[in-house]
């Protein structure tokens, strides 16, 4: 099955959504979505690594011996993650501080290695970049939505703009809220897919 360039970009949004359909990259999804802004930045950080590692891997795929391909891919991904760490420390130190450990942990995000294995090593550089872009956008979208819901319920604000006075339901900003919101959003997603 060949996909058009546009399909490559849009399939990650709903049909192959990495969070709600493929259930990949759960740790950053749960941990960094305490607010919409945090979710959005984590999504964009992953998008950055995903596009670059997909391009690099598709370019070198034919040179890498099959036996050692996984370690090689991991080193490529880890290199881009280190680049990202430097860039974020220099330009957005406050975001870097609030995402913390989960920036280096992009290395073990199964979405990135998954796309390298399933797509980038069989396709051209441009297609791989678009695939990374599409999956990254889908991931960013779901993280932003989860973050937004948790922020509205948990602190009564959206993207940092407060619309109620006082605190919200604090549990939604803390650990249990992450699991509950993701669970219920997944139910809504399943309902929507079943209707179609």
């Amino acid at each position: 099955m060949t996909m058009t360039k546009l399909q490559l970009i849009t399939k990650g949004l709903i049909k192959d959504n990495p969070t709600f359909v493929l259930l990949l990259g759960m740790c950053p999804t749960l941990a960094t979505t305490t607010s919409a802004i945090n979710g959005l930045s984590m999504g964009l950080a992953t998008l950055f690594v995903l596009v670059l590692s997909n391009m690099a891997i598709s370019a070198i795929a034919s040179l890498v011996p099959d036996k050692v391909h996984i370690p090689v891919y991991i080193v490529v991904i880890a290199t881009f993650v280190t680049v990202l760490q430097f860039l974020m420390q220099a330009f957005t130190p406050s975001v870097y501080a609030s995402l913390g450990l989960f920036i280096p942990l992009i290395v073990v995000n199964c979405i990135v290695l998954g796309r390298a294995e399933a797509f980038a090593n069989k396709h051209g550089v441009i297609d791989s970049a678009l695939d990374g872009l599409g999956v990254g956008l889908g991931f960013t979208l779901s993280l932003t939505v989860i973050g937004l819901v948790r922020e509205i319920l948990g602190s009564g604000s959206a993207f940092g703009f407060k619309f109620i006075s006082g605190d919200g339901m604090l549990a939604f900003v803390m650990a249990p809220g992450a699991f509950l919101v993701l669970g219920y959003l997944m139910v809504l997603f399943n309902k929507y897919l079943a209707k179609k």
Partner: protein
Amino acid sequence: MEILLIIVSAIFVNNIVLSQFLGICPFLGVSNKLSTATGMSAAVCFVITLATLVTYLLNKYCLVPLDLQFLQTIAFILVIAALVQMVEIVLKKVSPSLYQALGIFLPLITTNCAVLGVAINVVTKEFTFGQPSHMLGLGEAVLYAFATAVGYGVAMILFSGLREHLAMNDVPKAFKGVPIALVTVGILAMAFMGFSGIA
């Protein structure tokens, strides 16, 4: 006293799955049956402790003297991948029965973010444990890693017990599978929030 604080805090108060969100993929993936959950917990416990020991020494005696801390991410993931492979080979030779029990889980552990997460945490973060905040020494780091891994096992085994019961219940179609599991973990996490403040 400090030892006790490390253990209680790592297992219950800052449980690695329920409050730090590390290692969720295998947590959801292999918790369907109690027996596989136990096997996975044992394998993770072994690898986390060993990986933290090795990466701590690597960081202290190789990366820090050479001023190469920015290579932490790359170096650690390579060490972990190599370590998992080695454990697999050694186990196959030394204890085939244990290898049979843990075998299928070992390769999965490389991409378990709990391992890399703990290894990075102990060398970059400062901890208190009832004292002024300080970087962990080798003994503390390994103990912390081990206790964290035990916390992973506790959460995993509790959850798989719950899930075995869930499987027998009739849940609405849209909730089937992962959504109901996530809601259950949410409630479990709420219960674990009750531990906050004791250490």
